[in-house]
């Protein structure tokens, strides 16, 4: 049952990603990406990462995609793409992507990860539920990176404001 659900979610995720890439309309691309992000959130749920699944939906599907849609509607979405400046860009892109896929697939299937046993124990078993466990870890062991993240967000806010203003 779990494996069937995994395959259904995986197919929807891949179709959403592919449709996002080939879609001519930027708004359609953004909506296909939302489909993909929802599927990944479902996979997080299947992997006992409840907190991240909810954060994925709120932050990605909520905030980031709304930002994308704002910019898409702000710019002219009906512009068609210019003819290739690089000749054969599509072919080169396909070949490079395919080579990368073969490389990564070969590494994964070569059995490097065979030592990782499918331990059926969820990682949160010792710390209570998932949200509590992630929060405890975030505010103890990862406290300094967490604080640095706030500086990063501040820099992003200032940068976006400076870039968006016409005259300072």
């Amino acid at each position, binding site marked *: 049952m779990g494996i069937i659900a995994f395959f259904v979610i995986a197919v929807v995720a891949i179709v959403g990603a592919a449709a996002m890439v080939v879609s001519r309309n930027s708004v359609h691309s953004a909506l296909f990406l939302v489909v993909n992000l929802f599927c990944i959130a479902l996979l997080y749920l299947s992997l006992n990462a409840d907190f991240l699944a909810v954060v994925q939906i709120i932050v990605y599907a909520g905030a980031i995609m709304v930002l994308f849609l704002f910019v898409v509607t702000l710019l002219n979405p009906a512009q068609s793409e210019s003819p290739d400046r690089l000749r054969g860009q599509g072919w080169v892109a396909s070949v490079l992507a395919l080579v990368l*896929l073969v490389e990564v697939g070969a590494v*994964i299937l070569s059995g490097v990860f065979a030592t990782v046993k499918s331990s059926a124990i969820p*990682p*949160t078993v010792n710390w209570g539920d998932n949200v509590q*466990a992630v929060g405890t870890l975030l505010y103890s062991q990862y406290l300094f990176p967490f604080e640095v993240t706030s500086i*990063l967000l501040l820099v992003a806010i200032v940068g976006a404001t400076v*870039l968006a203003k*016409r005259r300072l």
Partner: protein
Amino acid sequence: MLAPLPYYLILSALLFTIGIFGFLFRKNPLIMFMSIELMLNAANLTFVSFARFLGSLNGQVIVFFIMTIAAAEVVVGLAIIVSIFRARASIDVDEIHLLKD
């Protein structure tokens, strides 16, 4: 019943490859940004599946940080795209080949 680890890794590799393809193939910077988001999500999926199968929570915390960085990156990147559009009335990346003017 949980799907085994290689299934998740292969799915993640496929999504990452689609993201790479989109980034190299499309010339609309918005779609290129969405492809970057897709690649980041594929990497996140790998982190979470390893966190699950190794029985450790550190991967989930790292994914949390990656999401923060993705949000910051998108905000600054979209601001740059908007200011380029204001200056040139075009956002095709093939048209943006001058550092000045």
